[in-house]
């Protein structure tokens, strides 16, 4: 099982839940997201593009580390990991 953490705007699409437990044990961040979409489809288009790429101003963190500094969407995951989705600091 892994845990997905969301906040703010995205909780509009999770019924208000900030913590989502995924019973599956996905092998990668990409697999975890695919699993997440089956639970909360509305998160998908808001987090990734129609090409499946992470939107430019969205950050994904595995146990607190940005996947940019790991292996991107191919970053490996294991049972007990925590995946956090956050909007970046940008704009004006």
């Amino acid at each position, binding site marked *: 099982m892994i845990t997905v953490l969301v906040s703010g705007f995205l909780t509009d699409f999770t019924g208000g839940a900030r913590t989502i437990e995924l019973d599956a044990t996905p092998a990668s961040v990409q697999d975890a997201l695919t699993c997440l979409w089956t639970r909360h489809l509305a998160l998908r*288009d808001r*987090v990734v*593009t*129609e*090409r499946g*790429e992470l939107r430019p*101003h969205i950050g994904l963190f595995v146990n607190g580390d940005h996947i940019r500094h790991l292996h991107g969407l191919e970053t490996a995951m294991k049972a007990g990991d925590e995946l956090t989705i956050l909007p970046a600091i940008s704009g004006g």
Partner: protein
Amino acid sequence: MPKPQHLDVRSGDILLLVGTMKGAFLIKSDGGRATWTVAGPYFPGRAIYAMAFDNRRDRHRLWAAVNSPFWGSYLSSSDDFGRQWTESETYSVKFPEGTESSLKQIWQIVPGATDQPDTLFCGVEPAALFRSDDAGASWSLVRGLYDHPHRTKWMPGGGGLCLHTILPDRSNAQHIHVAISSGGHYRSDDGGATWQARNVGVRAEFLPPENRFPEFGQCVHKIACHPSQPTRMFLQNHWGLYRSDDRGDSWQDIANGVPSDFGFAMVSDPNRQDTVYIVPLESDEFRCTPEARLRVYRTTNAGASWEALTRGLPQEQAFETVLRDGLTTDAMTPTGIYFGTRSGKVFGSHDAGESWTSIMEALPPVVCVKATRV
């Protein structure tokens, strides 16, 4: 987040749809157009590049293009003048599988021809056209334009590579015009199946002198046309002001007496053929009103001459910018004209530009103004 104020809208009211970089606003007046009431912000924090009102089939449907650098872009509609807006589980405007593109921003939404009351068009970045034939419930990419061999050679302008203007011929659904920055003006004569670049005579100031009049690649900022005179068109270019008398096949320079032929906004008068309004800007390097005077220019003779309309507009220290969708008209008599500025001001005229009043003074930067009579 701020809770939006709402409007009670009645038949006969004039409604301004104002898109800003931080949300949408609705501004209402009765038919007298003397006093105005504002509502919003809707979609606070989102950039609303395009809005539209669809009153075909007795609808009263507002449309908004909702853009976020974080969460992507989608179309939302309201059938109760903004009290409730749709936000679907999945986004409806998407590049299909088999294309290499992903939607960056929605720049335009426009109802289709009169005899196609369930058709809408939507222009996006990267430059492409989408079409709905079920009143906006679903959208599909117009492949005839997307697959055009020119597409891979189009270059982004300062705002991105966007299809920002869609001009369906109201009397002939086969004829559709679009403008792309920087791709130029394209026309379809078969309902969107095939497209031809139509830019003869339009200059590309940013290209070397030997290639200043290319087949395509111009940075066309806006095109306009009177609905009952589809053969005569007008074009505000990135440097250049033009008229066509052959549905865009060729263009003639009509920058006769304007302080600058650079600008974005252009709109035709729905009550008078050959009457067009623009707001010139000084240059591409200094995109503000020339001589710090806020002037709308009007031609009533298809560009043979232009006159400045200034009564009620600031004529000192007015460093304003009106963007391509920031100028609009209503269909009242005399014509109402409205525009919004990047400094968040909205001005209006209820006498075809003879005099102006301030309607709003402190909105976020205005990128879109549309007007309709309910």
